[in-house]
């Protein structure tokens, strides 16, 4: 194998390794490797965010959520998630 072919094969191997690592960042299954990778990326991204305020936003930082009771009351007027109101009781 000449120098060009060796170089191309090495690049291809590096490319495949990078692609595999990138893909492991986007899997839901937790393995040692992707857990480690995600931790490293999380650390780096977090550091960058703290230093630069990148994509900082008050609404997202507020971590807004609701309770199930609140949403059930809002939607159905009662606290039971499975409540089905009669036709007359519905606002439709």
């Amino acid at each position, binding site marked *: 194998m000449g120098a060009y072919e060796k170089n191309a094969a090495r690049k291809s191997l590096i490319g495949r390794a990078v692609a595999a690592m990138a*893909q492991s*960042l986007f899997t839901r299954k937790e393995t040692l490797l992707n857990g480690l990778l995600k931790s490293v990326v999380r650390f780096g991204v977090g550091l960058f965010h703290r230093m630069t305020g990148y994509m900082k936003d008050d609404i997202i930082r507020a971590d807004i959520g609701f309770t199930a009771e609140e*949403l059930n009351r*809002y*939607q159905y007027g009662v606290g039971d998630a499975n409540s089905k109101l009669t036709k007359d009781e519905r606002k439709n």
Partner: protein
Amino acid sequence: MHTKGVLCASCDIGCALTAHVDQGRVVKISQSKNPLLKDNICMKGVYAPKGLAHPNRVLYPLKRVGERGSGKWEQVCWDDAMADISQRLRKIADEHGPEALAVSTSEWNTSVDNGAGRRFLNHFGSPNWISGVALCAGNTAAVNRLVYGWFPFSDFARTKCIVLFGHNPQRHSWTPIYNMIRAAKVRGAKVIVLDPRRNENADIADCYVPLRAGTDAAMMLGWVNVIINERLYDEDFVAKWCVGFEALRKRANEYPLERVAQITGVDASLIRESARMYATAKSAAIPWTPITDQQRNSTSAIRLQCILRALTGNVDSPGGDLFMSFPRDLVSESEIEAHEVLPQAQKNKQLGSDKHPVFTYRGMAALKEPTKRVWGLEYTNLVTGCYMANPSATFRAMAGEGPYPVKAFFVLGNNALMSYGNMKLIHKAMLNQDLIVVHEHFKTPTAQLADYILPGDSWLERPQIWTGFGWVGVLATSEKAMEPPGECRSVYDFWRDLAWRMGYKEAFPWETLEDILDYRLKATGKRFNEFAAEFEYKLPDFETRKYLKTGFATPSGKVELYSSVLEDLGFDPLPYFREEPDADRKFSSRLFTGVRENEYFQTGGRHIPELRQRNPEPLIFVNTNEATKWNIRDGEWVEIETKAGKVTMKTSIREDMPDNLVRVPHGWWKPEMEQGLGKLSGAWKYADAQVCPDDDDFLDREQGLPHLRGIPCKIKKIAQPE
């Protein structure tokens, strides 16, 4: 409490988010657990659990009783509703032909169509499918294919230069794109912004070009002039891979910078500077923008973006605009749609294909064989925007003014009445129907005119595969986070049920949504649940310069700077700029619309209290000079009028607006206002679709789309509406 990984459909971008589930319902939406995706979240996603829990959400099928638009409904069961719908549809088809059914939808919103809607239409025999993507990315895909056979996505991660033609992604709007632009800027990429308004992205631009609204095609002809005459183009790529260069050069020379400056209102030196900045960048991307989709010169403008990419060698090239594909190990929506089943005689009846063929079956016909050669499929419905009927022509036929009657109209996840130009025509068209079926979350102005409102599920209540319809190349999964409330069902369930009742059971062997997802993933050897448990995203193959192996999917196999397809269809094969027609002097300003606020997506979201509080009224933007001209002040209510109609809005004075330009927001109605014919929850007062004309002067010739970027208008102060 537990969490699920979901893909948001509060807009059409599909951010990966985390749904927090407690007592069987989603109580919070937060950032993705993936550190690379955590910034892709906006307020619309955050408030989705509240929005989807609104007390007025439609949870059971409703059947109209009384006159259309009277607001009288009775709750029925799905079985009765679908039995009646199928029977009435059959009757309409028997009387008028299957082409008498038109469908308006957006699979980007409904998420789980999986190609079923087109599959049904193709078996049924109707070619008349329309969508909001005709004005937004779908049409772009079709026009791009005329030039180089596919629709590329920008390589934000590697590009050295980003050109934004009016596109204005913000922290809470097109958030992933905003994120990618900011990340590119941090890496040192240059940003060129072309926009009449000094928008938020102009603040980070290396070059800001304040062109007049609707003159993008002229600007790009100026750029082509500079790039060709200063020999800034990639000579090797042009020589080997382009046809029509000399004809293009001749056309570009008809647009010297003095002429372009006069049209665009931009100094010739700035035109030259911006063109050079783009053409001399080591790599450069021109991301998709809705702005050039929605102009009188849209086809030329979109083609010119393609031509610029080709001239500078940025087609399917690292840092340029990349040809992604349908994921290899997935049965694509395009295959499921089964366009080959629809007889040619029915394809020929597609409304609007005679006069405005570009994104119709007729316009795409010449690309069938080249697409099969390069991409392996004859029909590739990129972005779901190829093979569409023309919206204006469809509404005319529905109103009784077309070549044949259309008497049945199905609307799924689309507030059709307010989503296209010439709302008066659409209203007339809907009142002329024998059957209107709407699949929705709420009683939108469109739904208020229906015969049936069928309750739709939401993106939190179903599993989903997302691929960007061949544009983005990824394969993403969304887990079902909660059960749909009441009797809400997916659009897939609707089409499958209808198909079985209409005798197409063999063509629809997948009884449930999960069944079709499993089918689509069969090549992976996994069922959806297993696949989704493993893959949040399956990344695409990032191979570039694929044309070196396959050529381009065009009739010539090359990039067609001179379009053989347009020539054969009877249009100018080269891009051009069509000047504005003379306008009535009383309409001395120009308005642009189609823009939405960060709080809302299209016509949705006005019912969510927290978001409505942030943006309670529809606001026009004008600068001080414009306000003085019309004798209006900040906060005052006004009426904006064009030859097509009027809307009522509140004034906001902003100095980032240029003189003579008015920004009108898209999609306003007020869910709390009175429903029914004549009122339509404020749509007649506030919907911008009323001021958008669709006569020939204001239509793009090749696509037949309305001009939303520079409509002649006038403004009058009025009293505060009740």
